[in-house]
C-alpha cells in the first residue's frame, strides 16, 4: 500500500463503501423462496390444497414478522397447483426448482403426485415434504430429500384394525379408489388383517377415481352384508360413496369410517346434509387438543382471520414452513445438502409437539407421525368441535353410536 497515493486510497475506500452499499442490502433482501405444490383444482382434492396454502401463508407471514431467516431475508412462498395428477405435479416441481429456485417444497397431498415428484427432489437436491400424502412407499424408498410429517398407511390401518377388533366387527368391506393411496390402503389392510390376527372377513372393492356412479359397487357391498364399511376415497369420491351408500340403504344402517379428515371441513354438511350423520372419520387434530405455543398462536390467529377452526392441513402446512425456516437458520445456508443435515440433526417445534426426523426402518425414514383420533358425528349439522372421539380408548369422549333403523 506504501506506493499508493491518497487519492487512490480514497477511491478504493469509496468503491468498497459503494459496493457494500449495493451488494450487502441486496443479499440481505433477496428472499428465500419456499414452494407450495398442492392440489388447487380438480381432479385433485382442491379444498385440501386451499387449507394447506392458508397455513403456509400464515407461517411465512409469522416468520417474516419475526425478522425472516438467515439474518433478515424474507420468506417468499411460490404456490403451484398440481391438480392431484403426477404429470402436473412434475411440471410444477420443475418450475419451482428451475425458474423460482425454491429451497424446499411443501404441500404434497396426493401420494401418487408425491411419488412422482420425489425423484425430482433428489435430482435437484431440494427437500420435499409430504403434508398429507400417506402412502407407505414414499418414505420406504429411503430418499435423501423426502420428508413427511403425516401419518403413514400402516399406522392408519393398524389403528382401524384395533378398532375393528375392539368392536368385534365380523364382516368388513373396504371401498377404495384406484390411486396409490387407495390401492395402498387395500394392500395394507389385507396384510395387517393377517399379521394382527383380525378375526373378520374382508371384502375389498377398488373403483376408478373418475367414475361418479358407484351404485353397482355399493349394491354389491350391501348384498355381502357387512357390519362395517371403510371409505377409502379422497375428495369428491368420499362424498359420492357416502351419498350413494345412503341412497341404496347401506349407510348409516352399517357404520362407515372415512379414512381421513375430509368431514372436518366446513363444506361437509353443505354437501351432504342429513346424510353425514353417524359418520365416523379419522382426524389428526381436534379443537379440544392442547397444542404447542406455536400451534396455539396459529390457532388463535386462524380463528380471528377465517372465523372458523383450523383444519389439520392448515396446521401441518404452517408447521412445515416454520420448521423449514428454523432449519435454514440452523443450516446457515439456503442450499439442499446443509438444509437436509440441519433437518436431521435438530428438533423443531411443531403444532402439537416436537418434530424430529431420523433414519428409521421401513417407512419410518425421515418421518414424523401426528396423533390419530376416530371421531363420529352423531347428529346432522354437528360442529366439528363437538364430534365425539370414539377411539382410541385413552382419548374417548363417547361411544360409537349406531343409527336407528330406518
Amino acid at each position: 500500500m506504501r506506493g499508493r497515493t491518497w487519492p487512490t486510497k480514497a477511491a478504493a475506500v469509496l468503491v468498497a463503501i459503494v459496493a457494500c452499499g449495493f451488494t450487502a442490502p441486496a443479499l440481505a433482501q433477496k428472499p428465500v423462496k419456499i414452494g407450495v405444490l398442492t392440489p388447487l383444482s380438480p381432479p385433485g382434492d382442491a379444498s385440501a390444497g386451499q387449507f394447506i396454502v392458508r397455513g403456509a401463508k400464515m407461517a411465512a407471514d409469522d416468520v417474516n414478522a419475526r425478522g425472516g431467516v438467515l439474518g433478515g431475508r424474507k420468506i417468499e412462498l411460490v404456490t403451484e397447483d398440481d391438480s392431484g395428477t403426477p404429470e402436473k405435479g412434475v411440471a410444477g416441481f420443475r418450475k419451482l426448482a428451475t425458474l423460482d429456485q425454491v429451497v424446499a417444497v411443501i404441500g404434497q397431498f396426493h401420494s401418487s403426485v408425491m411419488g412422482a415428484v420425489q425423484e425430482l427432489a433428489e435430482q435437484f437436491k431440494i427437500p420435499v415434504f409430504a403434508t398429507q400424502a400417506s402412502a407407505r412407499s414414499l418414505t420406504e424408498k429411503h430418499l435423501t430429500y423426502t420428508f413427511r410429517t403425516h401419518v403413514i398407511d400402516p399406522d392408519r390401518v393398524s389403528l382401524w384394525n384395533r378398532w375393528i377388533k375392539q368392536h368385534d366387527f365380523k364382516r368388513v368391506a373396504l371401498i377404495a379408489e384406484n390411486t396409490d393411496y387407495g390401492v395402498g390402503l387395500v394392500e395394507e389392510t389385507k396384510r395387517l388383517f393377517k399379521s394382527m390376527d383380525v378375526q373378520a372377513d374382508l371384502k375389498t372393492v377398488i373403483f376408478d377415481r373418475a367414475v361418479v356412479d358407484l351404485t353397482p359397487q355399493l349394491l354389491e357391498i350391501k348384498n355381502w352384508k357387512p357390519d362395517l364399511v371403510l371409505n377409502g376415497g379422497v375428495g369428491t369420491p368420499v362424498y359420492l360413496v357416502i351419498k350413494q351408500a345412503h341412497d341404496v340403504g347401506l349407510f348409516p344402517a352399517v357404520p362407515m369410517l372415512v379414512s381421513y379428515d375430509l368431514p372436518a371441513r366446513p363444506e361437509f354438511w353443505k354437501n351432504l346434509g342429513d346424510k353425514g350423520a353417524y359418520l365416523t372419520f379419522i382426524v389428526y387434530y381436534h379443537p379440544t387438543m392442547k397444542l404447542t405455543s406455536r400451534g396455539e398462536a396459529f390457532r388463535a390467529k386462524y380463528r380471528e382471520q377465517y372465523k372458523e377452526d383450523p383444519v389439520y392441513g392448515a396446521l401441518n402446512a404452517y408447521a412445515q414452513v416454520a420448521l423449514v425456516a428454523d432449519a435454514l437458520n440452523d443450516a446457515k445456508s439456503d442450499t439442499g445438502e446443509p438444509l437436509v443435515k440441519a433437518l436431521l440433526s435438530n428438533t423443531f417445534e411443531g403444532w402439537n409437539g416436537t418434530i424430529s426426523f431420523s433414519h428409521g426402518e421401513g417407512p419410518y425414514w425421515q418421518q414424523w407421525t401426528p396423533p390419530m383420533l376416530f371421531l363420529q358425528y352423531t347428529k346432522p349439522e354437528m360442529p366439528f368441535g363437538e364430534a365425539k372421539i370414539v377411539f382410541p380408548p385413552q382419548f374417548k369422549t363417547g361411544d360409537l353410536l349406531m343409527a336407528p333403523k330406518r
Partner: protein
Amino acid sequence: MDAYLFSQYLLSGIVIGLIYSLMALGITFIYSIMKMINWAMGEFYMIGSYVQYALLVTLLPPERWYLALPLAMGAVFLLGVVTQRLLLRPMYVGGIERRDEYATIITIALMVFFRNLAIVLGGPNQYAPKDYARATTLGTLPISGNRVVALVAAIVLLTLFSLMVKQTWLGRAFRGAAQNRVGIQTAGIDVLRLDMLAFGVGVALAAAAGALLAPDFLVYPENGAISTFKGFEIIVIGGLGSIPGSVVGGVLLGVIEALGSVFIASAYKDLYGFVLLIALLVLRPTGLFGERERTV
C-alpha cells in the same frame, strides 16, 4: 347370484344409461345439423349444474328445483346460441377451409375456458343442492329420489324432443338440415339460424342432465368430463345422428358397465363400454341405428 340381485344391477344400469342418453342426444343432435363434434359438451353439463345450484341457493327455495330446471336449461340455451353465433358461425360463412379442425380447436378451447372460469367464479370445491326427492325403491332397486326424478325428466325430455323433431315445422326443418344443408336452403330456410337453434337445444339437453344429477353427482368444475366421455361412447354404439340409437346405446352402456363392474372388476368399469364399442366398430361400424352415408 340370485335373480333378485341380478335385477338390481340390471335396473341400476338401465337408470343411469337412460340419464346419460340425454347427454348423448345433445351431442348427436348438434352433429346431425352442424356436422361437427362439440368437445365442450361436458362443460355445458357442468354449467347447467352450477346454474341450478346457484338458483336454488339464491332465488328459489330448494323444493322448487323443478322451476330451476327450465331456467338452467334456458340460461345454457342462450349461452349456446351466443357461443354458436360468435365462435362457430364463422365456420360456415367465413370461408374456413378446414372446418373440422376449426370446430375441434374452438370447442376444446371452450372446454378449457369454461372449466377455468368455473374455478375462478365458484372455487375448486364441490357443492350439492338439497335432494329433489326422498330415496325410494324402483322394483327391486333401492334408489335415490334424485335419480328417479332425473329418470322421469330424462324420459319426458326425450319424448318431447322426439315429438318436436317429428311433429313440428321446426323439427322438419332440422331433419331437412340433417339430410341436406344445401337442399333446405332452396326451400327458403335460413340454415345458419337453424344451426344456432340446434346448438342451443343440444347444449340445453346437456345442461338438463347436469342440473338433474347435481344432488347425486355434485357440482364442481370437472363434473362434466365423465358424462361427455359416456355421451361419445353412446353415440358411437347407437349410431351417430340417431335418436333411438342414443337411448338404446345409453341403456346398453349403463347395463354393461353395471354388470361388468360387479361380475368382473369395478376398477375397470370404463373399460367394458369400450370393449362393446370396439366390438361394434368391427361388426357394425355405423353403430346399432346408424346409416351408411349416401354418396352421389
